[in-house]
């Protein structure tokens, strides 16, 4: 089962990186989303995939009664999902603002912070 997931993670990564190589912000953002989901799947697979019960300890016990899945990767994924969701919201709004202000979503023509004709500093008095 891990092998199937490994291939899936690879496909996600490939698609994400391909999109991130684009010049257009919106495609980069879509690539970032795929990239983030690939990582979440990767951590999930790293926790080993087994068909067991959720890791909830029954009443009156101190340890689970039988084999349970490893809860830690899921906690890590939850944290990562929250963070990447916040990031994505921020980036979406930022990209929209950038499109409104600068009038383009082509990274090659976003040269407001680093103007093309910046010139050298004065060489003497």
């Amino acid at each position, binding site marked *: 089962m891990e092998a199937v997931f490994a291939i899936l993670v690879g496909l996600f990564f490939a698609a994400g990186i391909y999109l991130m190589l684009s010049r257009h912000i919106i495609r980069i953002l879509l690539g970032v989303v795929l990239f983030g989901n690939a990582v979440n799947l990767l951590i999930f697979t790293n926790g080993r995939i087994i068909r067991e019960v*959720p890791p*909830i300890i029954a009443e009156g016990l101190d340890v689970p009664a039988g084999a349970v899945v490893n809860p830690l990767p899921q906690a890590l994924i*939850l944290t990562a999902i*929250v963070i990447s969701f*916040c990031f994505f*919201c921020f980036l979406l*709004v930022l990209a*929209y603002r950038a499109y409104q202000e600068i009038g383009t979503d082509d990274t090659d023509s976003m040269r407001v912070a680093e103007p093309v004709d910046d010139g050298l500093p004065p060489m003497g008095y």
Partner: protein
Amino acid sequence: MQTLIFRTAAPYLTGLMLMFSVFVLLRGHNEPGGGFTGGLIAASAFAIHGIAFGVPAVRRALYFHPMAISGFGLFAAAAAGLPSLLFGVPFLTGLWMSPAFFGMSIDLSTVIVFDIGVYLVVVGSFTSIALALEDREHD
């Protein structure tokens, strides 16, 4: 989204979702659920209210600014770790007390304070994101 059906149903939906979010928050203590899930449900309730009646109505209904709610949640979550200082145990250790109300013992703990803090952080921040995005649509 100014349809009559939606506008009639939205207040009930919002109220039910808010109640359900508190249920999920408290249930999370021993079973699946918790502050994060509950907070998301509450934030979507406010988002639905915003879609039906507009963003100003939500801001009026909330009374506090969403970021202030978030700030209070962050404060509550961090403060939930501080009683540990008095008891000489590490930060964020769960401390329990069971006061009896009307002959019924209720388990209270710093853990639930932390969870309520998480709930408020999520409600505040996701509501403010949702409201900001909804505001933008009507520009």
